[in-house]
């Protein structure tokens, strides 16, 4: 697999953690309780830690002089390849949990498979991240159950969030050209093959949470091709603010 495509493959995984970490970072200090505030910040920290490992690896194999921060802060919106799901806004706590839940279950399966990659660095990152993500998955699944089977109000809010976010789930299982090449090289994970397990796992939690699994005919995708939701631009203008305003400086 050539280096350029390997970098593309790495970004396809890393950008999800980057953008979700950024969204969670918006919430620090605003949580519904101190304990939840600490937990969400912790998840954000884990995700950024993973991002740093991926980007440092990408920088190391890049033929250009690049750093982790170049990948994080100095791309145009069209060059970020995260899925639409993770860039969705923190509309309310049910959305935060719904987004986390729908992503964590995918993320867990992805990392589990990535451990079998022929690329040793990716294996090492996957092994370390998997421990963190199994905690994330437990946290978000527990909250889906609490909100789903809590009060009438929380049930309705949680169901609405799941209904609204469900249209972004299909994209998780789309393979890009870089994915395809990485799969053939024995480096990448065939995400399409994870779909059945994902749906079964997610459905199990939803049932326990007394929530309905949405039945949709139409789904949204585009993030993996760099075509994002409108809110992505605002996220990036915050995230890139310092690097864009003061180009080339060390912090």
């Amino acid at each position, binding site marked *: 697999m050539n280096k350029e495509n390997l970098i593309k493959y790495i970004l396809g995984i890393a950008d999800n953690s980057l953008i979700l970490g950024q969204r969670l970072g918006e919430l*620090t200090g605003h949580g*519904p309780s101190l304990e939840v505030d600490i937990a969400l910040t912790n998840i954000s920290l884990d995700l*950024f830690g993973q991002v740093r490992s991926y980007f440092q690896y990408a920088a190391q194999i890049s033929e250009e002089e690049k750093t982790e921060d170049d990948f994080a802060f100095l791309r145009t919106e069209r060059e970020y390849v995260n899925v639409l799901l993770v860039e969705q806004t923190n509309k309310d706590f049910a959305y935060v949990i719904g987004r986390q839940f729908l992503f964590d279950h995918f993320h867990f399966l992805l990392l589990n498979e990535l451990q079998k990659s022929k690329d040793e660095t990716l294996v090492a990152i996957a092994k370390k991240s998997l421990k963190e993500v199994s905690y994330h998955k437990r946290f978000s699944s527990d909250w889906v159950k609490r909100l789903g089977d809590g*009060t009438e109000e929380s049930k309705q809010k949680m169901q609405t969030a799941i209904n609204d976010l469900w249209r972004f789930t299909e994209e998780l299982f789309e393979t890009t050209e870089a994915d395809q090449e990485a799969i053939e090289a024995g480096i990448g994970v065939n995400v399409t093959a994870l779909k059945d397990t994902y749906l079964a796992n997610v459905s199990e939690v939803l049932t326990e949470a007394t929530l309905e699994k949405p039945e949709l005919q139409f789904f949204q995708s585009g993030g993996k091709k760099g075509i994002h939701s409108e809110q992505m631009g605002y996220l990036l203008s915050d995230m890139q603010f*310092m690097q864009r305003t*003061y180009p080339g400086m060390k*912090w």
Partner: protein
Amino acid sequence: MSEKEVKNLEEIFEQKIARDEKIEPKDWMPEKYRKTHIRQMSQHAHSEIVGMLPEGNWITRAPSLRRKVALLAKVQDEAGHGLYLYSACETLGVSREELYDQLHSGKAKYSSIFNYPTITWADIGAIGWLVDGAAIINQVPLCSTSYGPYARAMVRVCKEESFHQRQGYEIMLTLCRGTEEQKQMAQDALNRWWWPALMMLGPTDDASVHTAQSMKWKLKRKTNDELRQQFIDQTIPQADILGITVPDPDLKWNEETGHYDFGEINWDEFWQVVKGQGPCNKERLETRVNAWEGGAWVRDAAMAYAEKQAAKKVQKAS
């Protein structure tokens, strides 16, 4: 309890403090001791969680991944400090909810420094260096204060604060070794944070109402003015290394006293901010109230769920 018995308990209590032994939650203590501790510990807890907001502003805009991770971890530490301190208050029989009510209604105070805005990245450096620096000076003596749960919480808090302080200073150092623009950013932050940081050590001794009693209970080991002098003496050489200057034309080294002399603090500004009229008092309190009220349905759901689970367990067992 007879008057004699109370007097006897009071004597045992005073002797314990004199021997530097800890007062524990189940020990008898005078009501005033309990109230003073609830007031001070909850003020401290509130300061930690309100303090998350000005720094939290910069999490989404941190200039590098390394800085973003460090800032997230720092703000998370503050939430952790809030948690220990609210728990320490609970040992004196007051709930976190009651304390939040006092904060949200404006009855309880928190450190005024957090009512100043963080408008540049350098403010994150200045807060770590100066605000955490002043906080450490205030807090290190509390590691040996008489109330056990408070003293133990402070040991951990101080360790983390001193890490934050070094981190803040390192941000300033990077800026001061950077471009002219970055150095100016650092100087501007020092200009804005210097006087409020000095005010953090509290009103001058003659205006401080709680000092005498607090010294007796070892809630305080040095007076506000002594602490302030200590802060200035330790901070000026650090500013010299950075190559930036504190905004005080009267500041100079005094050979005779072995301390820095410094200019008049604007106490009108201090009282203005304490009384709720600082640049961000309204925003900070509104944000806290919104987070709490907006999260009520989440807490209710968690409670309802826990009750249902407990009921299921009972059903299974029977």
